[in-house]
């Protein structure tokens, strides 16, 4: 009993300011991601291995130009997809399953606050990925030329689109189905989204459809502004915007918190 008397249990309720709640939750989510071995495999190790492997060895015909200049923007797009979509879908799916979302709903952290925290966490992990991938790519001889500032809206809209798709999956499917589905979609989009295999290898009709995938839009947009010296990436931005609006709206309507 003596220890209890040192704690002042008299009621003094109150919610913390929103920014403090969001930062606390975002910090928890970042720690969870960085400590999770499978997540790190997906978000850092696989992208780095693919970057090094496909830049060093002539595994695919990338047309003219240096292989690393073709591969590096694709790996940046893959990094965004792995964190915003695959990682977030799996983590959120299990949070729903374990009653974590429900428990958080009983605290002063609002749903808006929780989504802000998840966004902060995703962007922070992506920033780390981008730094590591860029350093490795530069070491492999990557020489980006173009308008790197245009990469920022592409990365942000790509993050929004993939987050919407990830939350759509996590909020409607069982956690195990989300785990399987999110990994499958990651692999399929890695193969079909122009990340490593140029889309012009596909027949014309197929290619036109594949170009509308969010991963293809992000990859081709990044390749344009970082490699080919392209300007405003209007087409890719429009595709990503459509995916972001549609996926986030659908996720907001269908998300089940329990």
């Amino acid at each position, binding site marked *: *009993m003596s*220890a*209890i*008397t*040192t*704690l*002042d*249990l*008299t*009621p*003094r*309720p*109150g*919610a*913390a300011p929103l920014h*403090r*709640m969001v*930062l*606390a*939750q975002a*910090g*928890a989510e970042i*720690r*969870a991601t960085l*400590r*999770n071995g499978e997540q790190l495999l997906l978000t850092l190790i696989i992208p780095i291995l693919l970057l090094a492997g496909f830049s060093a060895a002539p595994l695919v015909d990338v047309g003219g130009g240096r292989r690393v200049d073709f591969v590096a923007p694709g790996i940046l797009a893959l990094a965004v997809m792995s964190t915003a979509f695959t990682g977030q879908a799996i983590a959120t799916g*299990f*949070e729903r399953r*374990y*009653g*974590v979302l*429900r*428990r958080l*709903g*009983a*605290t*002063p*952290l*609002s749903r808006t606050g929780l989504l802000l925290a998840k966004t902060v966490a995703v962007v922070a992990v992506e920033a780390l990925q981008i730094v590591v991938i860029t350093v490795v790519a530069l070491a492999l001889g990557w020489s980006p030329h173009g308008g790197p500032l245009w990469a920022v809206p592409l990365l942000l809209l790509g993050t929004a689109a993939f987050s919407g798709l990830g939350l759509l999956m996590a909020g409607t499917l069982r956690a195990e189905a989300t785990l399987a589905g999110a990994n499958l979609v990651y692999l399929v989009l890695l193969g079909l989204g122009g990340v490593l295999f140029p889309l012009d290898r596909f027949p014309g009709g197929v290619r036109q459809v594949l170009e509308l995938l969010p991963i293809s839009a992000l990859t081709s947009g990044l390749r344009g502004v970082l490699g080919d010296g392209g300007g405003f990436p209007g087409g890719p931005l429009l595709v990503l915007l459509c995916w972001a609006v549609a996926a986030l709206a659908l996720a907001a309507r269908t998300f089940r918190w*329990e």
Partner: protein
Amino acid sequence: MTAVGDSAVGDGAPAVEIDGLVKRYGRTTAVDGLAFSCARGVVTAILGPNGAGKTSTIEICEGFRRPDGGTVRVLGLDPADPALKPRLGIMPQAGGVPPAARAGEWLRVVSRFYAHPLDPDALLALLGLTAHARTPYRRLSGGQQQRLSLAAAVVGRPELVFLDEPTAGLDPQARHACWDLVTALRDAGVSVVLTTHQMDEAERLSDHVVVIDHGRVVAEGTPSELTGAERQLRFRARPGLDVEELLAALPPGSAAKESPSGHYIIEGQVGPQLLATVTAWCATEGVTTEDLRIERRTLEDVFLELTGRELR
């Protein structure tokens, strides 16, 4: 009750007010016209067998489920009102913590959601979790998980806490630590509503007991109101004594029964005279009594009378 400005809404209202509450799951009616209230600043125990509707009721109060009928006010407000969140502390029956989260870190994160939280480390120490602060939640024992969940319920310095079976699965030491914390909360002016099916817990901790069964209130009152002033004489002896013959030797108005086999209970004017009569009768019958004692009816006796003995 008149509200003076938004800040005064709900002040002076009972901690919980439930009237005509109905909750159905498909064709099962879990809560069936429940009505009771919990006063401020006291410990209220909701007691009932498995499936009585305890958890449904408490989860409606917590805002986790919406009722199908009736009204529920918590601190005078609708349970879904976001203004309630900082004022409530909630301990669910299980889960709610990410399995990989370390105990101490998770409690600290939760504490950061509140304006004037308790020191998480002090709370961990109080509940004997300091040595496990860096242990992931999934590696904690069931009792440690329960205690961490209890810590999170009180870390925000709430006015009202809901504890759903707070001591289920705890060893005696942890159970007493939990009871001490509940008592300290009450002494500090916090209202506590807990569910339990452990009679000793309800009897020891609570100021008010609501016994529910089949989704309805079957009895309520203080533990002593429920058990009554009536006392019993109990003893053990060989099974099959002639209870009728014993009864004949006792003063009129007494009752005697064997329940269960070998355990005898005598009710009536329990005093030295009755005690002397019973021991004398046993002596002439050549019966050795064991464990002879005079005691009040327990809450368990009342509970079994009210809710029956069949298993759920």
